């Protein structure tokens, strides 16, 4: 009896099920198509934003005071953070490097190992991630608030170009500051490594710095500079874009600015790591 009623029920439900599936797949395809188009549109908008920024960077007038202000904000105000993280990164490398190298009786190469790791890889990447967290998020939030409070519209209606006031100074400041901050990170990190390797674990100063000078070449230093320069471009581009379009792509009001800031930090960080891979494989 039970079996019969189940069969009858299944028979009655099947047309509805079929209708549901028939409606589900076109809806899914439509949704996927919409999302794909939306992402392509946003990528296009990011590309246009970047090209416009480059254009206004090379066409005068340049807002020198705004550039100096942003250099002070992105660069000068990040010095302590970069020195601190650089020092501790170098100290960790000193411990880990000594532990690994001493297994093969190669602890004399601690200096080159710390130097190369910092100059080629860790310095540019960690400094860029720190600047993204400290300055990039603030840039996205500031521009985002200016967007939702119509300050950017006010600039436009005054006949002034918002790119020149808000975006170009950040790009120039980031391109100047990132290589300098990376150099600071490297130097403090190298001394941090020496503090552990030399003062605590007994590697001589002559060995540490002498071997480093022998193995670290100019092209390694240049690789770090190229990387930090390109990371500066990524931070300024992504954070300014997210702030500039915060009322359009991330919803309205303070929630929209909050989303834009989060997206700016996440996307910048991911792009820095992805771009780092490509640059390493090209410059290897």
């Amino acid at each position: 009896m039970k079996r019969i009623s189940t069969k009858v029920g299944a028979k009655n439900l099947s047309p509805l099920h079929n209708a549901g599936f028939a409606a589900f797949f076109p809806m899914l395809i439509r949704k996927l198509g919409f999302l794909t188009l939306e992402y392509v549109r946003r990528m296009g908008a990011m590309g246009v934003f970047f090209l416009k920024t480059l254009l206004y960077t090379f066409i005068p007038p340049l807002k020198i005071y705004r550039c100096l202000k942003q250099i002070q904000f992105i660069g000068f105000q990040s010095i302590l953070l970069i020195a601190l993280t650089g020092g501790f990164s170098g100290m960790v490398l000193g411990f880990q490097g000594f532990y690994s190298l001493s297994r093969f009786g190669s602890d004399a190469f601690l200096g080159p190992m710390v130097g190369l790791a910092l100059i080629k890889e860790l310095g540019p990447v960690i400094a860029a991630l720190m600047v993204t967290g400290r300055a990039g998020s603030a840039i996205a939030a500031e521009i985002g608030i200016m967007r939702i409070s119509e300050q950017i519209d006010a600039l436009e209606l005054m006949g002034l170009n918002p790119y020149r006031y808000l975006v170009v100074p950040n790009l120039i400041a980031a391109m100047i500051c990132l290589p300098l901050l990376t150099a600071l990170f490297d130097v403090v990190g190298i001394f941090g490594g020496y503090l552990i390797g030399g003062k605590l674990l007994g590697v001589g100063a002559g060995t540490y710095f002498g071997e480093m000078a022998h193995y670290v070449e100019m092209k390694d230093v240049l690789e770090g500079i190229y990387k930090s320069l390109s990371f500066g471009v990524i931070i300024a581009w992504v954070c300014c874009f997210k702030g500039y379009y915060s009322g359009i792509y991330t919803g309205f009001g303070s929630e929209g600015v909050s989303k834009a800031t989060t997206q700016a930090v996440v996307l910048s960080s991911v792009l820095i790591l992805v771009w780092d891979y490509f640059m390493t494989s090209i410059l290897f």
Partner: protein
Amino acid sequence: MIKIEDLQKSFDGHDVLKGISFEVGKGEVFALVGGSGGGKSVLLKHVAGLMKPDRGSVTVDGMEIATAGQEALQAFRERLGFLFQGGALFDSLSVFENVAFPLKEKSKLSRNVIREKVLMELENVGLSGSEHRYPSQISGGMVKRAALARALVEDPEIMLFDEPTTGLDPVTGQSILNLIDSCHQRLSFTGIIVTHEIPKVFAIVDRVVMLHEGRVRAEGTPVDFSKSRDPVIQAFLSG
């Protein structure tokens, strides 16, 4: 001077403007009234060139705003002043720096001349003594006054006011309207005031257009509106 023809705009399939047409003559002050969410501010942003219409056009002295090139749009904006609903003052600059900003950035006037001009403009809007305060340190009415001073400091030919009295108490709202009127007497600009403060605004405007459900419901002088028997207008007039 300003001609709006069959202006249509929709957002996410929702029609906000459904074919708006009217004209504003030179030196005329025009009130654009209607309920909240009726598309008044959207229309004003089309006039300023901040939005592009789906259909129709806005022309100023024969130049179509939506299709104008960068230079033409720039030249048009040199003649334009815009008072935003929230003031849109730069929050990291003081009141003085806000008002001085367009002059510092665009004119070749000396520092002393700019200072004199800004202080005079602040005096005109009743903000003498508040020039060193920041937008977050002053009241809503003072923000509107400072924004008005910034919009007027370059002596614009066209002024657009987006809800200049919204969020203000009746006395402050009335003083802002009086201020707009005295500025118009002084500068003779062509103005469009978006507001739902009727009949208060009738005292300072030459003509009125009422938007209702995305269309022009009525157009005429303040006297025509006061005498109208249209139930929608009557409902608005009686508050």
